[in-house]
């Protein structure tokens, strides 16, 4: 689905400073070499199995299914991975690749802290230096993850520019990369940025749908009717969709963070409210004003609080292969609490956006239909913030 210049339809590309061009070319060449290198593949699979804990479970949520009274709901449990989210899939791949390329230092951006924690973990394991850029606003919302990264030996740099959230963390990581390239790999956390990142991250995350497809065939003897995942930049969603893209009868549904609603300015629902633009190295959809100034987006979820979306999602939207639906803060918080009570599974607030849409969709479907919902991460990190949302002040 990728052409040589890293385009997905009209989206993607390499809109970055000249200073970084040789770095992304070198990365592309190394990736093209190592992705088929038997030693690399073996080493990565070994880490995924014995360190990250793959394959992750495909769990039939019986009580959730019966409570909602419609389609059968399976949960793809990425929350059970080591470090608590799908982010480890990509990070182990990129960190291993960076090491093969002779890099000794990783830099990364993070929103909720899930990618930052995963990057810090991989760096600790592989003996690399790691610096994580995180919006100052997010360091407050996700203080526990900041501590985890430091505990793992990484340096966390609070970013104060712009809106002090995920987009500014990406900008700052890019700025850092232009100043130090020789020994440093930018371990981008989502299917965004300049080529080859959207392809590399998608490939490393596609293990989610590779497993889920096989697991559902084993359990049900057929493919699901819908796959639902949350979308910020879109890495767990593309990972969840990828191996179902050619199965035309499987609906692919990405849940965007609508914040306080897509009719307000406090939203991060890019496909629903944005328009075509060029930013952070790629052509895709972005929330922006009439003059192309990037909008200060908002969501309760620090991980979905991003004004753009990965180019492959923009393309899947254009060709009508995937649907992108908005889910508000309120709906996500309700789902966060509902899944906790019905299944004893506390999802990340990001993943709760996918659960919220499943709660709307399942009751409209027949009981013999099947939905897979990706639980991209666990919700321990969100408990204090959700308590505050409900008016309760707790200390972590």
């Amino acid at each position, binding site marked *: 689905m990728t052409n040589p*210049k890293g385009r997905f339809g009209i989206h993607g*590309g*390499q*809109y*970055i*400073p*000249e*200073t*970084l*061009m*040789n*770095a992304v070319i070198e990365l592309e060449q190394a990736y093209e070499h190592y992705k088929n290198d038997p030693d690399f593949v073996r080493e990565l699979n070994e880490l995924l199995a014995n360190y990250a804990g793959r394959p992750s479970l495909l769990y039939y949520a019986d009580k959730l299914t019966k409570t909602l009274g419609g389609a059968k709901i399976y949960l793809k449990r990425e929350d059970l991975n080591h470090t608590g989210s799908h982010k480890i899939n990509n990070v182990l791949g990129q960190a291993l690749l960076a090491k093969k390329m002779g890099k000794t230092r990783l830099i990364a951006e993070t929103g909720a802290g899930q990618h930052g924690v995963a990057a810090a973990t991989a760096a600790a394991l592989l003996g690399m230096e790691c610096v994580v850029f995180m919006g100052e606003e997010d360091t407050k919302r996700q203080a526990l993850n900041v501590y985890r990264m430091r505990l793992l030996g990484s340096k966390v740099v609070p970013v104060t*520019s*712009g809106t002090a959230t995920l*987009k*500014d963390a990406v*900008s700052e990581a*890019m*700025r850092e990369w*232009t*100043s*130090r*390239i020789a020994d440093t790999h930018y371990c981008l956390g989502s299917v965004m940025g300049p080529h080859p990142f959207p392809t590399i991250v998608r490939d490393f995350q596609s293990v989610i749908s590779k497993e889920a497809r096989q697991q559902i065939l084993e359990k049900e003897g057929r493919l699901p009717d819908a796959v639902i995942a949350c979308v910020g930049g879109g890495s767990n969603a593309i990972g969840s969709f990828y191996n179902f893209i050619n199965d035309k009868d499987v609906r692919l549904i990405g849940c965007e963070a609508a914040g306080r609603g897509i009719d307000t300015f406090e939203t991060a629902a890019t496909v629903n409210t944005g*328009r*075509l*633009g*060029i*930013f*952070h*190295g790629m052509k895709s959809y*972005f929330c*922006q004003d*009439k*003059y*192309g*100034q*990037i909008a200060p987006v908002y969501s309760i979820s620090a991980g979905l609080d991003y004004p753009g979306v990965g180019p492959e999602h923009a393309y899947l939207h254009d060709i009508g292969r995937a649907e992108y639906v908005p889910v508000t803060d309120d709906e996500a918080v309700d789902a966060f609490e509902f899944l906790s009570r019905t299944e004893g599974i506390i999802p990340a607030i990001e993943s709760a956006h996918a659960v919220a849409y499943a709660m709307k969709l399942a009751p409209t479907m027949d009981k013999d239909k099947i939905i897979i919902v990706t639980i991209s991460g666990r919700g321990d990190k969100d408990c204090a913030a959700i308590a505050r949302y409900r008016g309760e002040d707790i200390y972590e």
Partner: protein
Amino acid sequence: MSNIAKAFENGKAFIPFVTCGDPDLETTGKIVREMVKNGADLVELGIPFSDPTAEGPVIQGANIRALSGGVTTDMIFAFVEQLREDVSVPLVFMTYANVVFSYGAQKFISTCQRIGIDGLILPDLPYEEKDEFLPICRQYGVDLISLIAPTSEGRAAMIAKEADGFIYIVSSLGVTGMRSKITTDISKLVSVIRENTSVPCAVGFGISTPEQAKEMSQYADGVIVGSAIVKQIAEHGKEAAGPVGEYVGEMKKAISV
């Protein structure tokens, strides 16, 4: 012949940068006129962008001040039109790809031609993506400026061969901002460029003192200064035209002797 070539006809060119609308367009107008009076050969006019990923903290600050002041692309076009009544040195816009793309490339670039903008610098548009705007730029005679960086190994010749207007040599790794020392071998980069094009080249990123400007002008045809000027504007606000003009005079003198 590109109008930009005129900037390189009076010895080494001094190219100052200013963000339009920082702190307001009236001040920007005074600053540009004062720069020209004091020897600026070409002026880079920044159109502010919300997320300027190639800029260091100083120019980031200018972008924020200008946007908070409410300046827009349309206001800047009207400002340039007025500026052109008495300012004749070549002028180029420096902004980000999304500002042009979002406005509509055809509409943006044809407006540049109409109001007398001679070139366009887009730091997030590398050689590989220049077809996004290049055909339209050539159609309207607006030079799309190519950048060459210290990390452009194996790319400089390819970029130089197709360059229009002038070549912007990025002196150092990293983002814009003042540096105490420039360690890149600029003369080596320039010799690769010279083998491949007759288009003039100017060095920018990190230059702030007359000594640095003098040194860089030994290798290249011109010197670009941004952050050192923007820092003075941050300090002096609406009163910045005087001190900036004086500074430009000093820098031009340093590269003229």
